[in-house]
């Protein structure tokens, strides 16, 4: 065991910290899931990209700086500690990009990735449908072959598309073989939201943001890839036709796993929580000892999560990724996030209901156990695929 950072990693941390200190807006931006906030966030993405911080672990050619996984962890830690804005590009960077890296052609990588890191293309995820949420294999949206025009015609409806109302592109699964059942016969498509036949309807989340959207596809044409920029701009397919499920699962496990939820976010929240506790104590607020225990529990769990991640990253670096064990990760961070925010509300007492950053954060945290595979599904995965209980 060696729980120290190398000198070069420390220099990297210093560099991050310095840049963030100089550039993070003093006032928090309005929520990126509202229209006015989105514009401000887009500006921030441009700044990040121009300074080379948008996608630190990517190759320089795609806008990154070839950082190691450890450096990426450091960057995330500093990013959240600095209170830097949420990443409106995250669905692309964390959910789609790993799939493009794994399944995209070289031409697709060269075309899509730089545009993504520069926030020129803003991607949203077309996974859920009105009747396919936890049961992703129940997807009904379809893509029909059009040999004459040389491409596919997409139709159907996607929903719960986070930030769909502000995005420019959609990635998602469509049924290309109507005879095949469940997770067979699906294909992974990319398509611009500006395509003819696309309709996007935004609607409100319970935290008051407008960040959800439904996307209706009415004969949207996606041309076959001829390697030209023009056809790629009109969309495309990732991986093989009919192999969408396997391709999507790789994305899903990125979403569930290490990449999306670095401990930095929770450590920053835990630090703010301690600060709030100290403030309340200093202000002489009468706090039940049980509230201080709730704060302590959340803090300990944050440390446990951070250490767990270090172990996982060590595994990834040494060639033994977590696999199905990443479901532990998802359940733990999502429920930890709720507890962190609950503890803050407990510290606030009767004032917890006021519209403020902790209540807002609490509302947002409640989506954690639902999205990216509900925690019920994750617990099934733990039981069946990690512990080895019988499926039926």
């Amino acid at each position, binding site marked *: 065991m060696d729980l120290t950072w190398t000198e070069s990693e420390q220099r990297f941390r210093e560099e991050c910290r310095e840049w963030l200190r100089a550039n993070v807006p003093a006032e928090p931006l309005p*929520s990126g899931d*509202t229209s006015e906030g989105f514009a401000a966030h887009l500006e921030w993405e441009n700044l990040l990209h121009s300074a080379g911080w948008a996608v630190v672990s990517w190759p320089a050619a795609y806008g990154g700086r070839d950082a190691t996984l450890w450096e990426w962890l450091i960057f995330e830690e500093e990013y959240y500690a600095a209170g830097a804005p949420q990443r409106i590009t995250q669905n692309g960077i964390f959910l789609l990009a790993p799939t493009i890296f794994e399944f995209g052609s070289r031409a697709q990588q060269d075309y899509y990735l730089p545009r993504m890191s520069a926030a020129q293309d803003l991607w949203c995820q077309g996974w*859920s449908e009105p*009747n*396919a*949420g*936890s*049961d992703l294999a*129940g997807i009904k949206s379809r893509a029909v072959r059009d040999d004459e025009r040389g491409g596919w015609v997409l139709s159907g409806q996607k*929903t*719960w598309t986070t930030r769909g109302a502000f995005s420019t592109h959609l990635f998602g699964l469509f049924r290309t073989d109507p005879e095949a059942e469940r997770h067979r016969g699906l294909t992974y498509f990319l398509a611009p939201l500006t395509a003819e036949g696309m309709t996007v309807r935004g*609607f*409100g*989340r*319970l*935290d*008051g*943001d*407008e960040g*959800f959207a439904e996307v209706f596809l009415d004969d949207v044409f996606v041309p076959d890839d001829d390697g030209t920029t023009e056809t790629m701009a009109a969309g495309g397919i990732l991986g093989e036709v009919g192999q969408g499920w396997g391709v999507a699962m790789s994305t899903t496990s990125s979403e569930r796993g290490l990449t999306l939820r670095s401990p930095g976010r929770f450590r920053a929240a835990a630090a703010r929580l301690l600060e709030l506790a100290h403030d309340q104590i200093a202000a002489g607020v009468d706090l*039940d000892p*049980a*509230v201080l225990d709730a704060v302590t529990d959340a803090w300990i769990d944050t440390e446990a999560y951070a250490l767990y991640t270090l172990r996982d990253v060590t595994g990834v670096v040494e060639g033994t990724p977590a696999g199905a064990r990443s479901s532990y990760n998802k359940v733990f961070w999502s429920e930890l996030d*709720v507890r962190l925010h609950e503890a803050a*509300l*407990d510290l606030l*007492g*009767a*004032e*917890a*209901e*006021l*519209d403020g950053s902790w*209540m807002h954060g609490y*509302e947002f945290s*409640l*989506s954690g*156990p*639902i*999205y990216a595979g*509900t*925690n*019920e599904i994750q*617990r099934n995965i733990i039981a069946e695929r990690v512990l080895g209980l019988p499926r039926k």
Partner: protein
Amino acid sequence: MRFAPTEEQAEFRSAVKALLVDTCDIAAVRASWGGEVGRHTEVGQGNGRVERAWKGLADMGVLGLLVPEADGGMGMTQDAFVGIAVEAGYAGLPDPLIETAAVAPPVLASSSEPLASELLARIASGEVTVGVGFGESPLVPCASTADWFLILTGTAAHLLDASAVDITPLSSVDGARHLGRVNWSTAASTVLVSSDSDAAVLTAARNAAVTFSSATLVGLSHRMIDMTVEYVGERHQFGVPIGSFQAVKHELADAALGVEFAEPLAFNAAHLLSVGEDATVAASMAKSRASRASQVASDACLQLHGAIGYTVEHDLHLFMKRAWALSRQYGDFRSHRAVVRRALLGS
């Protein structure tokens, strides 16, 4: 020994339920949400009131239930009110019902001031609402529409009319709350009852707020659970209703279990108020359990609705956010447990 409402009380409660189904449906609750509330603008332009329901409650005598007959009320006791508070919670009624109809009347009735008697009559007739706050500078729901304020400090109940206070509107997560921070100046003339003259009335007022907010939380929890039972019976995934999954069943069973055992505590506290005994520990037991049960129910119900429950277009959040607010108003789970702890163990 008989731990159940009387037949008369049960019938009255059913009539109130029917009234609320009629006058305080979900559209009415939604419409009561406020437009000034920053990020919730899309929801409504209301003032936190459902006037039609309020009028109906006045007509039925609910608002005067605890007002002495001499002042135009029904002169009944708190055990007749507790079931109604549950129904108000079930309906999601945003109006200051428990404050106006159950907290204020006994305090007013204990005073010999002519104003108090006049106010009791106007409460019974539905003409005025009363905002109630604990502490020197309290957060009070429905502050912008309240006609009178009853402020309970440690040592006195102060009565102030709306023109005598300074209200800072604050935005709550529950857009129907129309919360305000009430600032005001203590004066001899504002004191309606002091702990020197009648400490028991002050204690009972505190306990009534705690008891009936517990009952309201029980109702809210039942509503969320009912909505969820319906949803998981309809929603299909993997070819079956998701309500047939054992994890869903057990999550809902646990939510229901918590509410089931919180309810008798609230009824017991109301009973003690009725017979004039000190209900402090009983009320705190009730609020501690009702607050926690409502949290468990909210968490389970949101989780089981999945993404659809996470939208403002779905109705669940209207009830859930009210539960979040009420579970902390007049003391939360832990602070009420601490009251019991100190009574039992001294520290």
